[in-house]
């Protein structure tokens, strides 16, 4: 078990910079997600940590040891691939024992550890089967057992759940988190699924075009997004653009306040508000004291049982979204209604464009 340090990693393919001076520390025993759209460089960063790709510049340290020049097979890593990558000509037992044999663990000791690993992923009794006789979720578990049985210093997960259907994916998320906690292994998880990243991680790093946009705990990154990209990629967000004045931001003639320090009056400013932070106040009601109050017209209501999504037109015709639970039986406003959107200045975040 060890911390992983990526220091000013740069990688280009031809003229395209895939990673542009990325530095990130993966703390010992922590579950870190690399989150970003395709082409953001997250998979390349993982493959550089694994040793499959050589960085043009920068260093990789595992447990303080510089492994930049160390080949994959000497890095003592465990990796789970998107495709599972189980050896089809070997039994489940032999798949799991493969890495042990490479490290000189054979015989009784190997059998015991294979048994333990399969028990941990709840596949005891499946050892004699071939991979193709297992379901997708079971194959994924075997891949996980194979990766952790050698007690690697770091566990690398390359979108391991993306090939599973929704239900199975949620089940595997719980399993994965349980196993990671039990083993206490430093884990780097690549995903483009923001919910997955939030649910599993101790730490999230959002990548965009080869740079880290923001890194922090899931709560920090979600509640305090730093940029428009971070706010819209992780969760949904409403954006209010305006000019700084009167201790707030004037958005289409409406004053919106924030607790964040603002630039000088007259400057342009961009605010973000999460859709669930906004309360819909009917035309006959009033916004709570101290809250921002923004008039809007309901364009469409999407009813989804427990909650409804309201699509609204705000000041200057800006498109806004509000999530609200259906506490009083059905939506609180219908399409065409004029409402007031109430949200506290504390939840109104100043972000960079």
């Amino acid at each position, binding site marked *: 078990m060890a911390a992983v340090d990526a220091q000013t990693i740069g990688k280009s393919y031809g003229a395209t910079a895939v990673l542009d001076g990325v530095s990130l520390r993966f703390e010992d025993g922590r579950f870190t997600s690399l989150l970003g759209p395709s082409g953001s460089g997250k998979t390349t960063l993982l493959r550089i940590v694994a040793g499959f790709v050589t960085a043009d510049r920068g260093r990789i340290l595992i447990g303080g040891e510089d492994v930049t020049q160390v080949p994959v097979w000497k890095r003592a890593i465990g990796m789970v691939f998107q495709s599972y*990558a*189980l*050896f089809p000509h070997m039994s489940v037992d032999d798949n799991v024992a493969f890495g042990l044999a*490479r490290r000189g663990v054979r015989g009784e000791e190997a059998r015991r550890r294979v048994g333990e690993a399969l028990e941990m992923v709840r596949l005891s009794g499946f050892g004699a089967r071939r991979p193709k006789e297992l379901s997708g979720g079971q194959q994924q578990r075997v891949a996980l057992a194979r990766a952790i049985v050698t007690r690697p210093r770091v566990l690398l997960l390359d979108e391991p759940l993306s090939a599973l259907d929704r239900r199975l994916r949620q089940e595997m998320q719980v399993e994965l988190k349980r196993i990671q906690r039990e083993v206490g292994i430093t884990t780097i998880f690549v995903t483009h699924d923001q919910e997955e990243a939030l649910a599993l991680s101790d730490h999230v790093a959002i990548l965009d075009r080869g740079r880290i946009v923001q890194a922090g705990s899931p709560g920090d990154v979600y509640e305090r997004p730093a940029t428009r990209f971070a706010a819209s990629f992780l969760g949904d967000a409403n954006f209010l653009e305006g000019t700084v004045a009167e201790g707030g931001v004037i958005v289409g003639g409406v004053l919106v306040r924030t607790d964040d320090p603002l630039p000088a009056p007259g400057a342009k400013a961009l605010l973000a508000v999460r859709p669930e932070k906004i309360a819909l106040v009917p035309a006959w009601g009033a916004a709570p004291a101290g809250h921002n109050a923004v008039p809007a017209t309901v364009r469409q209501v999407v009813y989804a049982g427990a909650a409804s999504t309201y699509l609204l037109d705000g000041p200057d015709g800006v498109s806004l979204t509000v999530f609200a639970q259906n506490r009083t039986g059905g939506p609180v406003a219908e399409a065409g209604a004029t409402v007031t959107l109430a949200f506290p200045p504390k939840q109104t975040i100043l972000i960079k464009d």
Partner: protein
Amino acid sequence: MTAAGKVFLFAVLGFLYLPVAVLVAMAFNASPLYALPFEFTTHWFEELSGNDKLLAATRNSVLIAILTTVLATIIGSLAAIALSRRRFRGRTLLQLLLLPPIAIPWLIIGTAMLVFFFWTGIGRGLHAMVLGHVALAIPYVVLVVGAGLNNTRIDLEEAAMSLGSTPLHAFFAVTLPLLMPSLIAAALFAFAVSLDQFVISYFLATPGVSTLPVEIYTSIRKGFTPEVNAVSSLLLAASMFLIIIFARLTKVGGVSGRR
């Protein structure tokens, strides 16, 4: 399947196998002139055992085919691995250059080899035939093994490396076992190309050293006996045996396991 479909199927099978069936039947027919009625005999097989020329030619054919198989499979497979796994200048050109030898008429290749071997002093004989057959078989091996390699997944080798395998060990532990059916298919191709080869063997044969196809051709010209049928039947049985082994190993046509 519709009735018309069945009729068509049997017509095609009949067209393919009837001549072969007749050949085998006549190997067991007593009349040297292929006259009916059919009268069972193993006489022609007994005759065959006394026909040194035909037996020597058979031995040569099998020997050349085995040497060709081993050499062409090794060289061709290594070439296929290089072509599919390495990126180097001229790779596409090399791949394209593999195809013409399959399409060029054997008569032209045979003439070219005869001229070339004469000019370089390699001459004719068994060694020349092996050289020629290997050259002919390599493109088939590269194509078959290349297709197999395209189906093997690079992520399996990566998984092995993440578990501590060197690239070489990953290849031998993971890719090679999965490539085995392609290698066997390629070897059978090479064997068949060599065993079937007539034109090039005919050009490169010396009066004392010939192969079975060349010998059969020569005896037909002299007016031949059902001994040729007998030796052909034996070869046919051997080929069938090889094909069955191949089918068992690669599960061609069978259910390749549960999904």
